């Protein structure tokens, strides 16, 4: 910890394959005992994830090549073709992408800003608490809050009305794309705390003077933040972005409790579409096809991000 705070190595590449190998040692020279103890360390983690998560997933994917519950004939790629013909599923894909962009800009950007700004002052922890608090609140309460804020006669419209901004009032939950944006804002309200806490973990490796100066001083401070603090936060940024990306793409609960994906499926994301096809329509084939597309998008974008992140450091 003490060492890492100031050595340039702290900014070393967090990519999976760039981990420290004992100097001069190459994989081919890994000894059997080392390999065995490596296996022992990995065994539980890999085993549990594989059995509980990956195998069920494979079963679901396999199911995707068959028709729906009625006759379950082999359907090849029909389910996939069907998917891209359906304008609702295409919109669902668009919503998913809006979620990705929105979540990367809002929770990650705000999370970093709040973590940096509040870590420099003593009373900052109280402001931070205000931001972190909603993360601890359960989903059902968040749903009720969302309705309070966003319904036609809800708090947001009341506020806009009180401020004389009637032109800005809208039926937040009923029109597209406002309903998707509303859901993202609500998710930002709830989820930014995660990013703040994670960035705080990262800031521990940065000397406080750097942060203090960066947070205060105009252009010079910004430069210092950009070129000194930010690179030291790279490892934690990878975590935050990685997690945000995954959560945005899988966004389900919050949309489900806020709009159920409606009206007329206009706020659905791929995760909701999948749920609807598989469990509400009992069309396991189509549902699995969506799940596969969703997985390709999630894993693909995470992979791209983690890899391009590695290129950036070279």
């Amino acid at each position, binding site marked *: 910890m003490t060492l890492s705070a100031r050595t340039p190595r702290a900014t070393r590449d967090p990519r999976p394959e760039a981990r420290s190998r004992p100097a001069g040692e190459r994989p081919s020279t890994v000894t059997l005992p080392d390999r065995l103890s490596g296996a022992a360390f990995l065994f*539980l983690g890999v085993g549990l994830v594989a059995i509980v998560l990956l195998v069920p997933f494979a079963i679901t994917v396999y199911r995707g090549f068959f028709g729906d*519950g*009625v*006759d379950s004939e082999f359907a090849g790629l029909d389910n996939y073709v069907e998917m891209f013909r359906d304008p609702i599923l295409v919109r669902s894909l668009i919503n998913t992408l809006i979620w990705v962009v929105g979540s990367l800009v809002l929770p990650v950007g705000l999370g970093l800003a709040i973590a940096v700004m509040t870590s420099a002052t003593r009373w900052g922890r109280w402001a931070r608490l205000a931001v972190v608090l909603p993360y601890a609140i359960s989903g059902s309460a968040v749903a009720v809050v969302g*309705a309070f804020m*966003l*319904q*036609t*006669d809800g708090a947001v419209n009341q506020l806009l009305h009180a401020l004389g901004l009637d032109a800005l009032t809208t*039926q937040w*939950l*009923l*029109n597209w794309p406002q309903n998707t944006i509303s859901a993202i804002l609500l998710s930002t309200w709830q989820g930014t705390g995660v990013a703040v806490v994670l960035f705080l973990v990262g800031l521990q490796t940065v000397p406080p003077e750097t942060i203090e100066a960066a947070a205060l001083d105009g252009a010079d401070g910004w430069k210092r933040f950009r070129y000194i603090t930010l690179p030291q936060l790279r490892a934690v940024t990878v975590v935050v972005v990685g997690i945000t990306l995954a959560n945005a793409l899988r966004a389900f609960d919050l949309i489900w409790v806020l*709009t*159920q994906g*409606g*009206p*007329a*499926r*206009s706020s659905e994301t791929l995760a909701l579409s999948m749920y*609807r096809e598989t*469990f*509400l*329509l*009992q069309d396991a084939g189509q549902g699995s096809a969506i799940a596969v597309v969703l997985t390709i998008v999630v894993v693909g974008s995470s992979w791209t991000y983690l890899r391009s992140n590695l290129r950036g450091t070279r």
Partner: protein
Amino acid sequence: MQITRLHRTAGLLLATLLAGVAAACGDSGSSGTETGPLSLYSDNPTWEKGFTDAGTALQKITGRGIKPVSVPSTSDYEQVVRTSITTRKTNDLVKWWSGYKLQDLASTGLLSDLTDVWNAAEQKGWLDPALKPNYTFNDRVYGLPMYQSYWVVFYSKPLFAKYDIEPPTTFADFERTAATLKQNDVTPLWTGQSDTWTSFIPYQALVAAQSPDYYTKLTQNQAAWTDPVSQNALNTWKDWIDKGWTTPADSRLADAPAMMKSGKVAMLPIGTWQNSNLKLAGLTPGEDYGAFFMPTSVAGAPKSTFVEGGAWTVPTNAPNRDDAVKALGSWLDPSVQSVWSDFMADSSANPTVPSTDPLIKQIQAKVAQDKPVLLNRFYEAFPSKLVLAATTELSGFMVHQDTGPKVLDSIQKTSETEWADWKKQTG
């Protein structure tokens, strides 16, 4: 030192896991029990007390009571039931829906035949034979009614008194009532689509007000969704929305009782099962609110009301299947039903059991007097996929009322494919 500690921790962990798995795999014979209560599965945790109490009454007749377990989310419940009835991990009694939803589940062949139970109950006068088609698939009965809710319009008595309005008896009356309320800044009618399914409420009411016959034909795939009756229904609905007679489309049903209580909204079209929720909001039936049946809108159209009854089913894989079927034979017994309908504050499915709730009593009397056509409510009246597609389209209509013709076209199109699928599924 530290190494041994780690070894111990890791060893302990692994041992615990393995021991747990072994223990869990060991007790595989936990399925059938000789005595004790039958397990009952529902999506309604708030009914558990009612089930247990009815079970106590049932135990006096059949020797076995009821132990309810529930899943609090309806969509998850459906999923668990559909998955679990294929295994031995299912329950003795499973709450389900009537109509096409029941046929859908019965078509898997995993539900017990209850035809004899139904016939015996009907002979004793415990069941209305008119309900039988709602519980039948391929000429066999697979479910028994749990309760009997009628669809009415609850109205706020204080608001009606304040503006000197009587419960409407004609459709013109109804619209005059709404206009008066609106003039006085009260939203006349609760509607909403936040819960998705609630979007069918105005549609089914406006269709049945014109022609119960058309609705019945629609549920049998003998009429088109694009028919003028449906078009008229959407036109009237659009007119109501335009006039501001309905609550915003993002209103939630859970808030409806509170909205009525605070005088924001005057009428709530819903099943009589909502009676207990209105009471819960602190309203007194008969004093704070009353109920009327939606009047017919076309001269000469027969009176009708929607009914809703849920369904008891017994999976073929149920651990205590025979006892569960036997228990259902006594479910409609008046001594059981009086306990149950009191708990529900709603009608019993057994017409010989009177309700103790003054408002429900009134509604039952009105049904006995008017003999309205009983229609199965929208949710169970079509194949599930069609219901889902139609409610989705109708919720879109609530937001964009100028899309009426497109909405009906789209439902019609879905209806053609879904009915074809349905025929294939049920062979």
